[in-house]
């Protein structure tokens, strides 16, 4: 299945520009995630592309623009906090379920590819199919996969300083409720924070190293989160 590196080399620039067609995206992501040369090239291109954004002339905001955003924001429940548990929560060693331990190099590579895609990439693409492919490709290289109700999927990918959790296919939580992410060690749950959903996608950046995890789960909790899961998981790892 792995074509030689030569065949992917020319795709890296296109990939970082977001110019790969959907049917090639997963394969390209998979190769880049596992190839140090391509990752380094992707990082270099990504820096330049950020500069391209600087060529934009700012446009004058129409009157009421900010009010409009706030009105939209208030139409649904306010976004729940995504910060992880306050200091004092136990930090456990991360061990992807049934996968060999990650080397430092792979973890750094994961951080770069996530950075290149950006959580913003996952954030803004409204094409769930495409998001799923890319996330799956990354998780196949490293990380933990979760499955949930209604065909929803989640993936946890470790990064340099912590981890990134992305989920697709989750509906908006009911009013007054939020999703909460848990890491499980010996069946004991540790909260990794609460999160909301936009266009069926959710992203949680976990800023502290999380280690020795046997599994992960997502539950629906009252807004603000709970100390312990109070409902059955709507999504969990195998």
């Amino acid at each position: 299945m792995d074509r030689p590196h030569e065949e992917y080399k020319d795709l890296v620039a296109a990939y970082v520009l977001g110019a790969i067609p959907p049917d090639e995206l997963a394969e390209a992501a998979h190769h880049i995630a596992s190839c140090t040369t391509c990752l380094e090239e992707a990082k270099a291109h990504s820096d330049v592309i950020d500069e391209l954004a600087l060529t934009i002339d700012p446009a004058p905001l129409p009157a009421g623009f900010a009010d409009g955003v706030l009105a939209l924001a208030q139409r649904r429940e306010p976004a729940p906090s995504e910060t992880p548990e306050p200091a004092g929560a136990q930090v456990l060693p991360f061990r992807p379920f049934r996968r060999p331990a990650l080397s430092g190099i792979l973890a750094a590579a994961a951080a770069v590819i996530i950075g290149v895609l950006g959580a913003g990439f996952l954030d803004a693409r409204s094409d769930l199919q495409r998001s799923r492919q890319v996330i799956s490709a990354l998780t196949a290289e490293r990380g933990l996969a979760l499955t949930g109700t209604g065909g929803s999927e989640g993936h946890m990918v470790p990064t340099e300083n912590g981890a990134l959790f992305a989920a697709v296919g989750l509906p908006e939580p009911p009013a007054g409720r939020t999703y909460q992410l848990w890491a499980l060690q010996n069946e004991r749950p540790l909260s990794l924070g609460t999160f909301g959903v936009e266009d069926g996608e959710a992203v949680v950046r976990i800023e502290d190293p999380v280690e020795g995890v046997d599994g992960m789960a997502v539950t629906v909790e009252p807004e603000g989160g709970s100390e312990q899961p109070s409902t059955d998981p709507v999504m969990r790892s195998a």
Partner: protein
Amino acid sequence: MGRKLDVDAQVVRRLQNGDEGALREAIGLYGGVVLGMARRILFEPAMAEEVAQDTFLALWRRPGAFDPTRGSLQSFLLGVARNKAIDLVRKEEARTRARDLLMAEAETATTMENPTDRLEERREVRDALSCLSEMQREAIVLAYFGGRTYREVAAELGVPEGTAKTRLRDGLIKLKEVLNKSDTTEI
């Protein structure tokens, strides 16, 4: 630069605490360029405004998606805005409307005067773009601002797909070279 990132991190912390004032502040700081990015890609003002508002809504809903170690809040917001705008452009109607305007822009490389801040940076990158070959610049403009896949770039420029990929790659490499060179001369 360090202080700027601290400001970004602070705004995000306040957003995570549901501070609406922080959202207004972010809009005040970056609303103009976010709208500018949306306009550059979509051209149509109503669609552009919607994309710009959705960008800040996304920031409000998921402030944790921004990683300060990966770049500035401005870059993050522009990335989100660009992705949302490209999703729209990839729908046929918006694309046809924008195409002629986009190609016209790709063929020229003018540095426009504009009495707002960050003028120097803007001019620097625009000058760098004008250092690319016309073919490289067209390819990059189509991909970056037009949301074209490399296959579409190839079709629109009438070149083989391999050529399109190479132009994108060579163009980005050349841009980086030119920008790094101009960075060192400013010291």
